């Protein structure tokens, strides 16, 4: 898609999204907000795994850290920008430290996957074991398995909390903004290096690129994005529990990315929204187990459409739209 078309599409999505709360019921706004928040989480994995080639199986770690960091900071310092900054900084720093040992230690991709998965499970068990009054950080009671409740919603500078419509608009703006920023970054030379490392790490190194540093930056940025999503999630539900670190959460993100199209940014966003919608619809009935359906969907895509939805749609669009070069060739023949 050309840059102009992409910019136009983003503006249309943003404008439509801004108007949405005026057109639908409050419950729908509330439901769509979590889709958008999770889409931001999917975007974070699309960036580090799809574009950067870093197989992170524990992206939920950063999401959970963002959510918990916001909850603790908001309860202690108030639901302002400081709480948001802490919610982004904690997972970013955690990703940077973890990434430093993984990438400078030059461990293979498989072990990166195993370590990140193990880290998310360790975090879940760690937070799970914090029930009891002694596990308190300032005004925030960690709550163990029950999590933290009553998290204050982000407030405007005058102290008024964001209403559901404003939270939706903020989430959508952040999603569109992050998508645009990553797209721009990937067109820059530094962004092309990220993709080049995914393509051929050894060649990138032979051309003088510090692969470990580049991966560390990519991984930390992905952690920051996931942390931002976690922050918004805590705002959305006013509640956070250890399940944000769970294997199911990490697996869901991977499924969104695979179904949407791993090598694209838009695909995982679409995959996330579509699958969340489907999960919600399936959740209203008692006949079919939702996780079983998700597993079947994943199996279907891996076997039949391994590239995912977005590349398939792009291929179909190319098939029905004759390219300029093909037209020129036909004109020459004529």
């Amino acid at each position, binding site marked *: 898609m050309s840059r102009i078309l992409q910019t136009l599409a983003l503006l249309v999505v943003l404008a439509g999204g801004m108007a949405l709360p005026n057109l639908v019921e409050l419950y729908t706004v509330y439901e769509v907000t979590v889709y958008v928040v999770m889409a931001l989480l999917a975007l974070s994995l699309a960036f580090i795994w799809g574009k950067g080639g870093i197989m992170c199986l524990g992206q939920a770690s950063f999401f959970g850290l963002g959510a918990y960091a916001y909850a603790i900071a908001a309860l202690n310092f108030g639901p302002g920008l400081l709480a948001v900054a802490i919610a982004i900084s904690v997972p970013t720093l955690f990703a940077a430290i973890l990434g430093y040992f993984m990438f400078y230690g030059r461990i293979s991709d498989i072990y990166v996957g195993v370590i990140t998965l193990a880290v998310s499970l360790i975090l879940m068990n760690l937070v799970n074991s914090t029930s009891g009054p002694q596990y308190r950080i300032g005004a925030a009671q960690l709550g163990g398995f029950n999590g933290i409740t009553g998290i204050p919603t982000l407030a405007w500078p005058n102290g008024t909390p964001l209403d559901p419509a404003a939270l939706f608009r903020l989430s959508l703006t952040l999603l569109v903004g992050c998508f645009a920023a990553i797209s721009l970054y990937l067109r820059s030379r530094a962004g092309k290096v990220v993709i080049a490392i995914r393509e051929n790490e050894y060649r990138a190194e032979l051309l*003088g690129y510090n692969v470990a540093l580049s991966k560390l930056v990519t991984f930390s940025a992905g952690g920051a994005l996931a942390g931002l999503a976690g922050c918004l999630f805590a705002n959305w539900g006013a509640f956070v529990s250890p399940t944000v670190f769970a294997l199911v959460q990490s697996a869901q993100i991977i499924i969104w990315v695979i179904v949407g199209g791993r090598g694209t940014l838009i695909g995982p966003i679409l995959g996330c929204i579509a699958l969340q919608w489907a999960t919600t619809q399936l959740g209203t009935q008692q006949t079919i187990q939702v996780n079983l359906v998700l597993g079947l969907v994943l199996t279907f895509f891996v076997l039949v459409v391994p590239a995912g939805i977005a590349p398939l749609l792009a291929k179909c669009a190319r098939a029905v739209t004759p390219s300029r070069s093909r037209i020129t060739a036909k004109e020459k023949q004529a």
Partner: protein
Amino acid sequence: MNGEVILKAEGLGISFGGVHAVKAVDFELRAGELRCLIGPNGAGKTTFFRLLSGQHKPTRGTVTFKGQTLTSLLPYQISRLGIGIKTQVPSLFEDMTVAENLELAVPHGVHARDIPHRVAEVLERIGLADLRDRPCAELAHGQRQWVELGQILASRPAVALLDEPAAGMTHIESVKTVEIIRDITRYSAVIVVEHDMDFIRMIGDRVTVFEQGEVIAEGSFQQVAQDPQVRAAYLGRKETTDA
């Protein structure tokens, strides 16, 4: 040879278990030089090449580039010093286009506005201007070799190490490869590792011959071709005795 020595190996060697793949080799490369390393299969030339390029760490001896020791550096640090490497099997960014592969090879010091010009220039020289937007995964073997040589041209290193640049090519493709290597020598001193004597004859420059991990001869192609030790290494002892 008039140029200063820019790449130097002293007592360089490596052993794998009890096997001495390269045995205490002394070697010098001067600025502007085009040197060919030849030898039969298993002679140790590729291992020696990998020692020079930092892909293997030596068990003895040192490699210095413009006086700086390379043996403790990582591949990207060696590259940044000004050493370009073309691997035996073409190693490219498969899903990226030919132009993007070349663009990424242009060093950091080059101004952004000059990069497209340099890429266009290299595309012309390697004869792939028409395929500039084609992903490398879709190229034929010879074209992939040229893209990798194009990366060397785009980066203009002080030393270019080329491992079997004509492997798997037809004679016509090899002739074009020789032209590209001659282009590279405009900016870089070049070491070519090859076992194809016809290709070395086309390059026709100074040749170092390896056999069983040691240098057994050095000189022009004609000189080494007449060397009895070289003939024995390539053709077998019996042939030499008969001769």
